[in-house]
């Protein structure tokens, strides 16, 4: 009855598609990463380079800078999204007049294309045109120019990401909170625990799997962000918001440095996988404990 053949058969189409459009390109990138290949260099064609591209990466300041910036961006924006999302999700658990309206309006950014998000924020932030620089100047006397001030650009990109993705975090956490068993919480309140204690010793541990899942998903996507940032700042001013996805894009596309860019891609993929694998293990651990 329970022959594995049936199981594999059900899994097969998924694996087949992923193998063709996911794994095959991966192998190609792996292969190209072993060559020195820029079609517009003086020597035509691919030159065997073994692991030289990977060796170069370790000393590539621009690459390491970009890696560090991406990490910072992912950390800051995911932290904000998580705290804000948790707060909002908690307010949404109980019904109150207007809840549905609030929730519906609030998740609007979730459906916007990243590229449209970038375009929208660009319209907001162009000096002489958008309202943000205008009102910051008028009310607070702040000179707001994304093209000039690196800190402002970084902050704005973080805010944009928070604006775009906190709704997703909120909804996921809300789903978790809603599905959480109510009895332990009520019991704790009867036993005289205060709000903070309930939150710290009951809600957080029970929500841990959901939290880790959300962190996993958001981290994975924040580390490969391209579209909206490219649209808003193109990575500038200078390289202040040139995250790793944009950096790789520049190396592979306009610079046509295919070999080096492929190696870079794989190294970043490797880092991401390691990071996510750690989270995955933590997740599995928490799951086991609860069983």
């Amino acid at each position: 009855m329970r022959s594995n053949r049936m199981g594999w058969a059900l899994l097969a189409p998924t694996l087949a598609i992923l193998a063709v459009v996911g794994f095959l390109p991966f192998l190609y990138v792996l292969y190209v990463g072993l060559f020195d290949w820029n079609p517009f260099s003086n020597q035509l064609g691919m030159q065997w380079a073994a692991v030289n591209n990977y060796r170069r990466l370790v000393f590539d300041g621009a690459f390491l800078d970009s890696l560090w910036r991406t990490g910072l961006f992912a950390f800051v924006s995911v932290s904000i999204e998580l705290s804000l999302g948790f707060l909002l999700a908690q307010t949404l658990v109980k019904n109150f007049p207007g809840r549905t309206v609030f929730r519906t309006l609030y998740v609007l950014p979730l459906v916007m294309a990243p590229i449209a998000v970038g375009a929208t924020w660009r319209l907001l932030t162009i000096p002489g045109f958008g309202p943000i620089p205008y009102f910051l100047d008028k009310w607070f006397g702040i000179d707001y120019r994304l093209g000039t001030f690196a800190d402002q650009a970084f902050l704005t990109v973080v805010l944009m990401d928070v604006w775009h993705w906190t709704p997703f975090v909120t909804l996921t956490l809300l789903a978790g909170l809603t599905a959480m068993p109510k009895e332990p919480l009520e019991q704790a309140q009867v036993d005289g625990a205060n709000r903070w204690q309930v939150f710290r010793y009951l809600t957080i541990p029970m929500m841990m799997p959901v939290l880790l899942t959300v962190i996993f998903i958001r981290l994975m996507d924040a580390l490969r962000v391209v579209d909206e940032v490219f649209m808003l700042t193109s990575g500038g001013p200078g390289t202040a918001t040139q995250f790793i996805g944009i950096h790789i894009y520049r190396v592979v596309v306009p610079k046509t440095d295919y070999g080096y860019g492929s190696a870079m891609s794989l190294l970043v993929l490797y880092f991401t996988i390691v990071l996510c694998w750690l989270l995955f293990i933590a997740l599995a651990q928490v799951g086991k404990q609860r069983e």
Partner: protein
Amino acid sequence: MFKHKLTVMLGILVLFSMVLSGCAAAVPAAQPAAPAAEGEASWWKTASQSASCEGVTIRGISESTPPSNFARETLAPAFQAETGITVELETTSWDEMYNKAINDMQAGTGIYDFVYIEQDIIYQYLANNYLVNLTQLLADNPNLASPDFDFAKFTSFIDNFKDADGNIYGVPMEAFVKIYLYRLDLFNDPAIQEAFAAEYGYDLAPATTHQQYQDNATFFTQYGTDNGLELWGTTVQGNTGHASSFYEFFESIAPTFGVYNWGINSENWKATVENGGGMNSDAAKEALAFWVGLLQYAPPEATQSTWDEVAASFAAGRAAQGWVYGENAAWIATDPDRSKVVGNVGVALPPVSEGVMEAAADGSGYIGYYDGGSFGLPVSSKNQQCTLLWLEYIGQESVQADWAVAGSRIVMESTYDDPKVQEVDAKTDNYYTLMKDEGPLFRGAPPFPFHSALREVVQPFIWKALSGELTAADALDQAAAAADAELVNLGYGQ
């Protein structure tokens, strides 16, 4: 309950898409009148038949600009009517166009039968043998050589698309010069003139020196502040994350200080002064400091401005003067739907350092950028003969004038004399006349086969100079060192 909703939803989606495709079928594509003359129809038809091109579809890719859109919307349908060849021209963004064209030609896929070749990228394409030798192709197919097509009718701009032996690889479709624009209403206002003369001790005029340019910029910025106007002294194409700022500096500003070819020594492929280059020479540093210094007299959007936004700022009346690409000069000066300064746009040659004008006149230097592009035929194309007909079609004299009016581009000498063009010329303070007479003072990008790779390495330093992260001198020192290293990496100047 749930299932029901999902069904309803899908139903709506399907309906929606059906309605939309219905619309698509119902609205016919606009087909403006064909500009070609009656008598020629038979020749194109015969030629097309002789190469069995009737019913063939050829596909091209170009940047979405007014000239390309004119080719797609007007020339392509007219060509189809004459020859039975369908032309699908994909117009897209600048970055995407290069990426897709290069992917296609590099892999030899043959998706595109013709590609837009900007003047500065041709050397990369030629070095990789991407393009078909059109001179040869015409000679091999005499039955396809239209009597109305002749390479000799083009301006000297076509020289950019020749190899060392004079063979031609692209049919020019647009050309402009990056010009100095200023506001006639401001510069000719007697009260303003008086105030300027009182402050600076000489008469207000379009700048011929950098000091004068800066005086003008300072004056008008102050004038804007004093009068509560949204007006600044100059535009700066200073986007701190986009290649456009690199181009403005190296192609328009640096040459006026006598720094040519990005400061790269073409003998030994070196950029640093120590190695015989000029990218971090004193003149280059002076140029960068001057240009970055202009930011304080430019509207606040300058560090986010590419070529499009510079034109928009000028058209919105936010700047008194500036370097603006010629393709925008005509609409800024004439189109009231898009511009607030119609009729108030003056054109002049950009300000230069001492000796630069003389060097440009004798051909040893240049004062700015002569920009443009052509359509070329990739070797990988499977419809080369049919595409050749299309390239000849767009290279006829008879289609040039309307194209010039639609896209303010001129690639043939004869176009300057067309009444339609002269009418626009009169409204734009004689931009076309200036381009015709002074065009030779301007020049295209240097013939670097490593153009985009090197640009990618150098531009971050320019951005950092613009954002104030580096001083002009430091930025160029670092940029030149990085350029030297990258050139070696690319196999030049070992």
